[in-house]
């Protein structure tokens, strides 16, 4: 069989015009246009061919990202493509961003492999490298000859279901995505061999580079805590009994929002923990141990705080990826913004 590929390029590479034509709306042409010729020479060697080319003005795409992306997705679908290639965009910022965006949209909506190519400093790289393979290209079209073979190779092998190697070996920009694989040796032997290399001062490659974390600057202190409305937010998994939002015991994909207006303390049997990462016994016996509603109500009655906010937010911080945790935090922050003066975060 021949694998069908759709190619995305901008108005410049389609030969329509430069900046003065950057506002043209997307169009589809059957077959090859512009740089598609060079790509297709490589595709043909591997039973693949470009069946159609989508062209869009860079300004038009930037101003109509959603609708232009949808247009591209529809075109790719119409041609029954097995793979999608965009660019190369070299150092053209808007073009690079468009290439990244269409690769992401096509990949997510149609589930087919994608590839693009850009200069490493193109803003499209940081925005979209997580979602697609971006071949590391020169900063101008002079680098076309070098960019095309790895683009074709990465796309063809994805379409054939073959594994893609490391960024270094394949020539794409590191996506920062971790992929599991079976090594030739067990982890213990790899560890001891790595240690021997480290001791000898030989070169070794760590299997995981230590992460770098955001640091949050603490907010200034509350001027008058006796007037403050305070919310409780927990990663300790305290939820109404039965876990109505089905928050997973580990690797939570969501969080819950629960009303505690009129609740003076969290009774056993009415609340529980959904968290699988610690001894649940004591949290289930008295959920206030993790989410201290009882103490907050006392402080409220004593006038030491203004008010306990009517809702609390809960997720499970067990095996939950940092990216998900960050998203939950941002969303909860947005919900609380302007409604409370402070938040108490409890863990486990």
């Amino acid at each position, binding site marked *: 069989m021949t694998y069908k590929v759709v190619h995305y390029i901008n108005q410049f590479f389609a030969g329509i015009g430069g900046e003065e034509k950057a506002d043209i709306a997307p169009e589809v042409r059957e077959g090859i246009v512009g740089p598609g010729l060079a790509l297709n020479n490589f595709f043909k060697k591997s039973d693949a061919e470009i069946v159609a080319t989508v062209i869009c003005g860079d300004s038009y795409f930037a101003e109509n990202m959603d609708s232009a992306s949808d247009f591209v997705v529809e075109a790719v679908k119409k041609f029954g493509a097995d793979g999608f290639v965009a660019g190369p965009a070299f150092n053209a910022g808007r073009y690079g961003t468009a290439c990244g965006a269409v690769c992401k949209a096509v990949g997510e909506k149609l589930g087919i492999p994608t590839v693009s190519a850009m200069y490493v400093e193109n803003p499209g790289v940081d925005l979209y490298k997580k979602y697609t393979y971006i071949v590391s290209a020169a900063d101008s079209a002079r680098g076309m000859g070098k960019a095309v073979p790895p683009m074709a190779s990465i796309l063809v092998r994805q379409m054939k279901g073959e594994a893609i190697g490391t960024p270094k070996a394949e020539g794409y920009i590191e996506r920062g995505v971790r992929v599991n694989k079976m090594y030739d040796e067990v982890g*213990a*032997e790899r560890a001891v061999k790595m*240690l021997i290399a480290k001791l000898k001062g030989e070169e070794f490659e760590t299997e*995981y580079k230590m992460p770098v974390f955001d640091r949050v600057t603490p907010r200034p202190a509350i001027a008058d805590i006796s007037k403050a409305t305070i919310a409780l937010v927990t990663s300790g998994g305290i939820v109404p009994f039965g876990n109505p939002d089905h928050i997973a015991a580990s690797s939570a994909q969501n969080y819950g929002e629960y009303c505690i207006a009129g609740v003076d303390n969290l009774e056993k049997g009415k609340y529980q923990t959904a968290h699988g990462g610690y001894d649940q016994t004591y949290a289930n016996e008295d959920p206030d141990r993790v989410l201290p509603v009882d103490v907050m109500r006392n402080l409220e009655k004593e006038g030491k705080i203004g008010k306990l906010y009517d809702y609390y937010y809960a997720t499970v911080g067990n095996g939950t990826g*940092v990216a998900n945790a960050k998203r939950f935090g941002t969303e909860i922050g947005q919900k609380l913004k302007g409604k409370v003066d402070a938040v108490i975060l409890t863990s486990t």
Partner: protein
Amino acid sequence: MKLELQKVKITKVVFGDEFSVKNGVLTVNKQAIIDYLSDDDRLAGVDVELAHPGEKTRIMPVKDVVEPRCKLSAGNEVFPGMIGDVDTVGEGSTLVLEGAAVVTTGRLVAPQEGIIDMSGPGAELTPFSKTCNIVVVLHPVEGLENHNRETSCRMAGLKAATFIAQQIKKAGFTADKVETYESPSYKDALAAYPGLPKVAYIYMLQTQGLLHDTYVYGVDAKKIIPSMINATEVMDGAICSGNCVSACDKNSTYVHQNNPIIKSLYEHHGKDLNFVGVVITNENVTLADKKRSSSYAVKLAKTLGADAAVISEEGFGNPDADLVMNCWKCERQGIKTVLVTDEYANRDGASQSLADTCPEGDACVTAGNANATITLPPMDKIIGDIQFADVMAGGFFGSLKEDGSIFAEIQIITGSTSEVGFTKLGAYTI
């Protein structure tokens, strides 16, 4: 201290009227095992089933996996402080039924943990699809308090494994191979191989409470300060698992008995390095405990004169802080480190993998991203109870499909991302 492991290779287990081993076939008396384990008033029911590699069988939820062993000489019994007396083990000779394993399952303690598939894609990820499994199905009495429940299920696995080995000892056997390991005195260990770097193993034990505990000579390891242990003591079951939540990276008792880092250090001993000793340390939940244990463990390694250490973590998240403290405290004392961990990089692999970090951690071996997902196809036979899939760590509501298949994170598979490097799974960055 010298330990001889007399290994009998087991390739099949069958039920019979007696206990025997012949041509790799282990015969066990099912009723005798049930009767022996039933002498525990915390258990309302006990059953025993068999599962072999390649069968369309799923065992879940899995509490522990134990290799059948018993002492042949030097007194005492394996699993000191649990089965054996509290006296020192690690000397004399020990019978090992290699290739067999006791797996405990049943209505355990919420959250329910661990899947072992004997065939299919899940089988590729667990070491225990390759063993001939004697599965002990446990039904604790209703209303039993959770900690008691855990203890009775934990003890049942250790008891069954020892009992089976003891019956073979009585019946007679011929060892297929004999392995000898030596734990020399520190005086001799430190004087050996003067030209080679001294390497210690810092062996982190999960100690965070119910279903997250580890026992050393019967002592709850959260109550120890870090300590030296001989590798041969570990082989005799001095370290037992009470620990199975997020089953992918918890060291079952079997993994302790066969710790691959110890094995690998022995293999390189005298050639590339001088393996001078094992330091056990814990992973308690408070900051003071983390500081104390990491400082003390590193001090022990320093006292040994170690030039380098392999550090293995057990678990993730909170223990990442212990791992990182052990790492930078070693490196700042001039002890070079390699860390063995696993990753929680989200299902898409695009998130950071660890919850703590330090620049000194420049040499890291990973057992893979535990958040990666897998579809486990339906099986013909379920041992245990499939209904727990949605509430197991790594599962989620909707994990269990109507046809009996399970869509979940590989976190749910027993031993899939072993942080003592028991398997070949790892990860790389694309």
